Each structure stands twice: as structure tokens, then as C-alpha cells.
């Protein structure tokens, strides 16, 4: 077993290791509301989660689901930065830069390998349905949004697969719609890890691919499944949690799954039949991707915990965890990528309200073309399909302060010189601005905005002076004015 990680203060990381432990922590801090009255799985539960996201309200734990006694829902698991901090075992009031710094520190360390445990010790094996007993409708699969193409069982989960040659595991959050009692279908994009494995290996051979879907993961396992990191998700989860993840073997295939997940669905991805999937409310805040035949999953076995909790993410307009967490981890993984290439960046931030479409990068400008270099590296990376805008500002701008970034964008970005468009790139079917043809074939386009001053401008005579309280007045005058602020008759500045 790997050593337990310590945080910056030298104390052991105290992150919740399961979904249940996480809910308890949220209850203690007032970040979760227990709903005891009956909630309908048909739209009502989804509407509760959607409203929670739009109001940044506490996460709902619904304990009485119509038609499904003995099951629970937990929604909007990580749709606020407070909850992200709690999931990492940090002070709930930690700032975003503090949370980001901690994420980078933990994920830049040594990977922590998972450990396999016996079936008898795995909570996810408390109930097992096989053969004719398999019926997805025995689970409280919600209709998340009115008008969705179906009941979505996989909205906050991990689809677990193993590469047939390399043997490496992939945990991915590929949405899954219930088609019938034994069948699910989902959006698996061709550039994704699973999409590539299917198109390169299984589909040409006409072979089925084993899969397992784990629902009700620990928050950090869900974070890892969402993160576009090159580190295997089970190891990344261990790094984030400071302790190994416990895995257990499936009943009907050799895949290993998180032992404390609430629900496990085991089965096969079938290569020769695709059924209609969608539409679905998506992280961009729209229903965009067309209803079409998509990757199809046949379920052979269902295992679940007693009083199993099905996790629900309700994607729509900001902010839900789809935007918040993906922006968080995508930005930080891009930060790692750029630093690994020696680019003199000061930080990367993706505002969740951009639905992780815009990457804001701070850079210490020491040579010409650094903004385009950043954009080309970011767009050309494996992460590139998930965003299409890069905005580069110099290190005088606080990348977390949209007022400052917006001001720099509107005043320093020369329309002729500093805006660069990249055509015929990889995109996603979920881009609302893409044409139907582009969505069908995952064709994208991208743009970068260089909001830095040109390096060949004379810093004294060519670069304009920022006119602000902090920049144009002497420290003596600033101190005098701030010191007398209330004496002038103003309210104190918080």
C-alpha cells in the first residue's frame, strides 16, 4: 500500500472516501439538504437538481422516491467550489486558487495504485441481479429533463473499460440513456479514449467489448473520471484522496470496479447494433447534439448497495458540476501541459460560465508569439476538442478576475493582429454554434485572442499606461486616501 499523502501543513489528507462519507460531510457543513417527502423520478427529481444548480443551493439528498422504496437520489454533487473543497478534505471556504493549487500539488506527486479487495468485503455486492432478474427499471432511473430522449441512468458516473491490447483502464463519464430493460445507449465521441478503442479494435472485428458502469462514486473518483488527465483514473483518485482506491472484480467479466460504488452495471458494448440516443440537456446549456443511433450497451448483471443512492447531474445553463468541475480540471491539466513545455505561464483558468469553452492563460511575456504558441499547444493537445477559445493575458492581469480579463480583451486585443482562427479542427457534437454537418462529424474551429502588448513595442513610448488607483498614484497618496476613506464619509471597503 502506498504512503498516505500529506497536505501542505504536513497533516494527512482527510478526504471522504465514499459517496456516503461525502454526504455526511456535506450535512455537517450545511451543504446538503435531506428531502424526506416523496419525490417523483419522472421530472420532479431532475427539476429539483436543476434549480439547485441555478441557485447554487445545497446538494439534495432525496430519500423517498416514488415507486422505488429503498433507493435514494443525490444530486449536484460538485456544483459549487465549496463542495469541491469539501470533497478534497479542505476548508469549505478555500478560494479557487487555493483549491487549484492543492489539486496541482496532489496530482503532480507519485501515482497511488489501487488495491483489489475480496468480493465479500465490497459494499457494491450487497445485492446482485443476474439472468432474467436483470431489469434496469428496477433502479430509479430518472427522467432528468422534460423532453429528454429517455431516462438517463448515467449522468454522474464512470463507464469503465479496459484496452484489449495495452491493458490500461479507462474511466469515462459517457452519458448513458436507458433504452429498454437490458439496454443503454450513449454518446461516445470518436476522439475519446473509448471511441478510439471501439473504432480501432472492436468494431472492425465485430467483437463485443466488456464494460462496467459505476454509479454513486466517491466525489474524487467522479472528479478523476471527469478530468482529462493522462494518469489512470483509479490512480488519480488515489492521488487526490491520499490513499489507494479499493477495487473489486465484476461478477460477469474481469473488469475491476470501485468497491464502494452505489450501483454497478456490467455488460457488453455491442458492435453491430446502434440504437437511437438523445436528445439530452447538455453542459453547454442547450439540447444540441442530434438524436441519432449511438453506442449501445447490453447489461448482463446489476449489483448495488443496500439503500443504494443514484447520483444525478442535471446539465443545463451554468452552473452545474459538468461545467464547474470540467472547467476546474481541464484548466489545471492545461496548466500542467503548458508548464511541462516550458511556457512561462502564470496560470490557467476556465470560467465555468464559459461552459469550459474559453481558456484564459496568464503569461509572463518574454518573447514574441507566445500567445499563439500557447493556443497551438492547447488546441493541438488531446484536451483540444473540449474548448475552442484561448485568451492570453499578461501577468499584470488577475486571470480569476473577469473584470480585469474583459478589460484587457477589449482594449489590448487588436482585431487585425491578435485574433487567429484555426479552421477544420476537432470539435464535438455538443457545440451549439456548430452546423449540423460539423456536429455529425465532430468538426470544429477555434480562435485565439492575444491580449498582451507586443514585445516589439517600446515599453515607455508605445505601451499605454493603465490608469487605475493602484497604478498611477504614489504609494503615499494611496495610503493617505485609503486611510481617510471613512473620514471622507464613505462606507468601509470590505
Amino acid at each position, binding site marked *: 500500500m502506498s504512503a498516505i499523502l500529506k497536505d501542505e501543513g504536513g497533516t494527512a489528507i482527510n478526504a471522504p472516501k465514499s459517496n456516503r462519507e461525502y454526504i455526511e460531510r456535506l450535512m455537517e457543513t450545511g451543504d446538503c439538504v435531506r428531502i424526506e417527502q416523496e419525490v417523483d423520478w*419522472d421530472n420532479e427529481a431532475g427539476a429539483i437538481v436543476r434549480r439547485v444548480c441555478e441557485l447554487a443551493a445545497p446538494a439534495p439528498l432525496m430519500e423517498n422516491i416514488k*415507486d*422505488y422504496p429503498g433507493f435514494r437520489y443525490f444530486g449536484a454533487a460538485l456544483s459549487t467550489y465549496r463542495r469541491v473543497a469539501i470533497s478534497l478534505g479542505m476548508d469549505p471556504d478555500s478560494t479557487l486558487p487555493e483549491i487549484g493549487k492543492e489539486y496541482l500539488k496532489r496530482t503532480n506527486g507519485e501515482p497511488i495504485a489501487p488495491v483489489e479487495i475480496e468480493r465479500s468485503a465490497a459494499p457494491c455486492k450487497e445485492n446482485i441481479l443476474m439472468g432474467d432478474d436483470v431489469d434496469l*427499471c*428496477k433502479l430509479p432511473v430518472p*427522467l432528468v*429533463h*422534460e*423532453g*429528454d*430522449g*429517455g*431516462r438517463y441512468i448515467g449522468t454522474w458516473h464512470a463507464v469503465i473499460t479496459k484496452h484489449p491490447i495495452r491493458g490500461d483502464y479507462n474511466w469515462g463519464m459517457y452519458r448513458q440513456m*436507458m*433504452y*429498454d*430493460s*437490458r*439496454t443503454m445507449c450513449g454518446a461516445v465521441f470518436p476522439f475519446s479514449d473509448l471511441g478510439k478503442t471501439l473504432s480501432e479494435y472492436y468494431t472492425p472485428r465485430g467483437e463485443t467489448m466488456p464494460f462496467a458502469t459505476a454509479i454513486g462514486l466517491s466525489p474524487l473518483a467522479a472528479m478523476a473520471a471527469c478530468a482529462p488527465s493522462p494518469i489512470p483514473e483509479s490512480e488519480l483518485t488515489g492521488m487526490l484522496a491520499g490513499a489507494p482506491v479499493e477495487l473489486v472484480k465484476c461478477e460477469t467479466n474481469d473488469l475491476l470496479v470501485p468497491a464502494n460504488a452505489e450501483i454497478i452495471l456490467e455488460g*457488453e458494448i*455491442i458492435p*453491430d*447494433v446502434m*440504437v*437511437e440516443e438523445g*436528445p439530452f440537456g447538455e453542459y453547454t446549456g442547450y*439540447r444540441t447534439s*442530434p*438524436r441519432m443511433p449511438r453506442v449501445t450497451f*447490453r447489461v448482463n448483471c446489476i449489483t448495488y448497495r443496500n439503500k443504494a443512492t443514484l447520483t444525478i447531474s442535471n446539465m443545463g445553463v451554468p452552473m452545474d458540476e459538468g461545467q464547474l468541475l470540467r472547467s476546474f480540471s481541464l484548466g489545471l491539466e492545461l496548466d500542467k501541459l503548458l508548464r511541462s513545455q516550458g511556457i512561462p505561464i502564470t496560470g490557467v483558468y476556465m470560467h465555468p460560465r464559459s461552459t469550459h469553452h474559453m481558456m484564459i492563460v496568464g503569461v509572463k511575456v518574454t518573447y514574441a508569439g507566445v500567445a499563439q504558441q500557447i493556443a497551438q499547444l492547447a488546441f493541438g493537445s488531446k484536451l483540444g476538442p473540449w474548448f475552442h477559445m484561448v485568451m492570453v493575458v499578461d501577468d499584470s492581469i488577475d486571470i480569476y478576475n473577469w473584470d480585469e480579463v474583459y478589460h484587457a480583451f477589449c482594449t489590448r486585443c487588436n482585431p487585425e493582429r491578435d485574433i487567429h482562427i484555426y479552421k477544420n479542427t476537432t470539435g464535438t457534437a455538443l457545440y451549439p454554434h456548430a452546423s449540423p454537418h460539423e456536429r455529425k462529424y465532430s468538426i470544429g474551429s477555434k480562435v485565439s485572442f492575444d491580449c498582451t502588448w507586443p514585445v516589439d513595442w517600446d515599453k515607455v513610448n508605445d505601451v499605454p499606461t493603465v490608469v487605475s488607483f493602484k497604478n498611477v498614484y504614489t504609494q503615499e497618496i494611496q495610503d493617505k486616501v485609503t486611510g481617510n476613506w471613512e473620514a471622507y464619509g464613505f462606507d468601509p471597503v470590505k
Partner: protein
Amino acid sequence: MNKWEVFVDDLSELPEGEGLELTIRTLNDGFHKYTYKRVTAEVSKSLDQYADSLQVRFGRGQLSDKKYSINILGEIDRFPNYQ
């Protein structure tokens, strides 16, 4: 009487009096609500023509104000190799 729903891009995909192949989902109350099956069927704009009703949605989930009745002629097994 059963209640069904179908997704189409355009109502022209639902000509009357022809044998159609459709993917429909049940709107009957119960825990199988919204599950799908592939069927051969005929539809009519006359709500009294057939015993079952058919509600229509478009590709982004918008509900059509046009209602149909439907007669299911048979079920198509989409997974004959995966029982």
C-alpha cells in the same frame, strides 16, 4: 389503450395508412415508462382510428401539437444475437 411517443425530425415521417418502422416509447404509468421498442405500425391523424395514442416530439425534445393514433403490427427484435 396504451400511450406511446415517437421522436421525428419532421411530421412527414409519419404518413398515414402505410406500414412504418418506428422506435417508440411507452408513456403508460409504471416503472417501465419511457422504455423503447422497435415496431412495425400504422398511424392515423384520426385519434379514433386505432386504440392506442401516439404523441410526437421533434429532435430537440419539442412536443408537437399534432396527435395520432397508432396500431402496432409487430415488434422487431433489435438484439437477436444478444439475449
